[in-house]
């Protein structure tokens, strides 16, 4: 568990682990052995008369000083192992804008390319410029020993170097509501060459998808998946947190505007308003405040594609 050395952080962390866990196991096994030995050796049938011992000051000093020295050593290695996590990223680091929201990750690369998985090259410093849009999330890549809370309103940067190509889990470790345990994605570490190919090959996802399929609805579907809309809106009629897309378009809905009910028809305009200002017209039976505005996250063109997609779900 502590030998793979998959990132520049893991060495210091794992060293601290090995030191602390070795000392702990030594004491646990040693003290348990003494405890069991005493229970057997001094049980009533073996030792009918107890010696009335009150204590021993020398022993008290010994077992205060030795643990003190040991914990100071553990403290030191824990501190040293943590230092690299808080340092500023080197100048040649690849900066990736990382956005956490209920319950999806979004990574935006330097040229504007977006991905819901984190694709990075091995051996290069990666700086994640992180931001949370709604509640506290925490980015955790166990293999890299990397974890940082992302507090809304307080952008933070975390940086690391992945040592070996492969795929690794990325979890959210700060409880963030209903679908917290689905806020999982993958870190794909590529060799530099593979990464260059991936990066240059397609600069825009829409273009990427457009090559494969020509229908605008299916491009819209890709965008919906990438932005994580389907964390809250199903396509099969299941009620999650927000209304399902199934049969939504051109349906009549009761919405609540400023506490007053009103009937509207779901059309292009309503869908656009719901993406830009999601909390003004809330469909009856759903809660306000859960969805955040996607104003600066999607272009008008992308919104049109999303609407095409929603039209197609019936």
């Amino acid at each position, binding site marked *: 568990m502590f030998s793979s050395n998959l990132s520049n952080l893991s060495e210091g962390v794992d060293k601290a682990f090995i030191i602390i866990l070795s000392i702990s196991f030594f004491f646990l096994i040693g003290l348990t052995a003494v405890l069991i030995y005493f229970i057997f050796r*001094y049980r009533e049938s073996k030792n009918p008369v107890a010696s009335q011992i009150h204590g021993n000051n020398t022993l008290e000093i010994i077992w205060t000083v030795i*643990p003190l020295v040991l914990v100071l050593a553990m403290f030191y290695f824990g501190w040293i192992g943590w230092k690299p996590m808080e340092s500023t990223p080197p100048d040649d680091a690849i900066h990736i804008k990382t956005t956490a929201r209920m319950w999806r990750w979004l990574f935006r690369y330097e040229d504007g390319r977006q991905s819901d998985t984190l694709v990075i090259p091995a051996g290069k410093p990666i700086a994640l410029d992180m931001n949370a849009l709604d509640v506290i999330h925490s980015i955790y890549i166990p293999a890299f020993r990397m974890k940082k809370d992302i507090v809304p309103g307080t952008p933070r940067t975390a940086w690391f170097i992945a040592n070996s190509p492969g795929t690794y889990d990325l979890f959210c470790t700060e409880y963030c509501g209903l679908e917290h345990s689905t806020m999982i994605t993958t870190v794909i570490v590529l060799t530099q060459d593979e990464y260059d190919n991936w990066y240059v090959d397609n600069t825009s996802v829409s273009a990427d998808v457009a090559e494969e399929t020509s229908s605008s609805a299916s491009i819209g579907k890709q965008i919906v998946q990438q932005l994580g809309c389907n964390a809250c809106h199903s396509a099969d009629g299941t009620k999650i947190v927000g209304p399902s897309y199934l049969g939504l378009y051109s349906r009549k809905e009761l919405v609540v505007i400023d506490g007053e009910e009103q009937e509207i028809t779901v059309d292009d305009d309503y869908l656009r308003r719901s993406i830009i200002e999601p909390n003004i017209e809330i469909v009856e039976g759903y809660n306000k405040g859960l969805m955040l505005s996607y104003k600066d996250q999607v272009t008008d063109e992308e919104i049109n594609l999303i609407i095409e997609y929603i039209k197609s779900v019936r």
Partner: protein
Amino acid sequence: MSSNNLPEPSYLEYKGRFKGLFAWIFSTDHKRIGLLYLYSIMTFFIVGAILGLLMKFELIAPGKTIMDAKTYNGIFTLHGITMIFLIVIPGLPAVFGNFFLPILIGAKDVAFPRLNLLSWWIYIFGAVVALSSQFLGDGPPDTGWTFYAPYSFKTTTNMLPAVMGAFILGFSSILTGLNFIVTIHRMRAPGMTWLKMPLFPWTLYGTAWIQLLATPIVGITLLMIVAERTLQIGFFDPALGGDPVLYQHLFWIYSHPAVYIMILPAMGVISEILPTFARKPIFGYKAIVVSTILIAFIGYFVWGHHMFTAGMSGTAQFAFSFLTFLVAIPSAIKVFNWISTLYKGSIQLRTPFYWAASFIFVFMIGGLTGLVLGSVATNVHVHDTAFVVAHFHFIVFGGVGFAFLAALHYWFPKIYGRTFDEGMANTGWVIFFIGFLFLYFPMFILGLKGMPRRYFDYVQDFHGLNIVSSMGAVLMIFGFFLLFINLVRSARFGKPASKNPWGGPTLEWQIASPPTVENFDKIPKITKGPYDFTNVKPD
């Protein structure tokens, strides 16, 4: 016992102003109040344990097993609130502190008996308010027992009653603490100097100060949540200009010392039980007293280790990690002294001793894994994973729970005046102990492998160990069921107990089982230390 009269009735039979149930819920007798707490806490514990078991059933396989994510999130929140606020925080002080503190220091009651009864009523009221969150409004809260901002402001579930409940319960805790401090200062029997006081009262004393000084902070914090949710004052929610990390600081300034509210009395109980069964004085009495005070004191300054990933300055990380390691020392000193108490003893292998010895083992695991969490680098890796869940269950369930069951078996003959079936009790203990280890130990490994806590669903890699853990839960509950049935049955039908069935040296073993209303006919004069075995024998 008066010489010219019938023997005085025991506190169980005593007839006062009220009859039936009222004779209990309006009684100001510290022993009856102790039992009121015992029955309330046991009831809540059974609820909390069933919730825990349901969570373990859900986690036996990835994906949805028996409930949906919403229910799961509600259940771990309720499990946490019940176990922490209703059971473990009041736990030992409210039950055994109430019952035995006055007796152990040679007093007839606590300093303020009516305030004591009020504490119980506030406790029940707080519990009702907290639990009402499950049934009123828009559904059970799903924030976790920590109510972290800003999620606790965004969730549409019924969070305010849970927060208000915790706020009200705080007052119960404060009043109990105040009562115990005054009792210990003013009501010790003549001749009982501070250093002749038994160790359970000593730990209650340390605990009482924490209850008194730390609880108001969480009270203020919870009120701030209420103000923020109802009046839109931006303390914690960034959307209103607040700082979510401030909430975490305020929450842990109380909630970390609260862990010491839980564990200190547990340490006290173990320090009472070991000498009795080793038939020799506790090893290093003064060292244990000093370490108790140190734990209570240093415990105030370590809360930051809950927040190593939250974005504190390097200086804060350094200081909190350092202090956390320091607080490990007094706990280690206690363990060394407990084990040395057995050296050259004449150990009677009885049920309370098994509980106390297994306490030492699980407490060591809980304490040593705490070192992993005190060190910054390793903390970052296991923070908010199953490792933390395993660690604090080893401390607050392994530590406090084992000590509670140790105390319950140890003092059972005194409380009910009846003995229990030791064969069945020991069987229950073995099954419980093994189940406990299987339930929680795999969670350490899961955490090291990276499984986050509060996860309704998990990746396939974590499956195997979760099965082991869930099986352990079933085993442990079965063990608990056995020992619980045994105690309930024995309380009614057990053989009458003598004054001093175990051969304990402290004052409670010199009075009748069960004690009379006034505990002592004559307040004893104390001339020797608490663990003096001269002329003490089981009868």
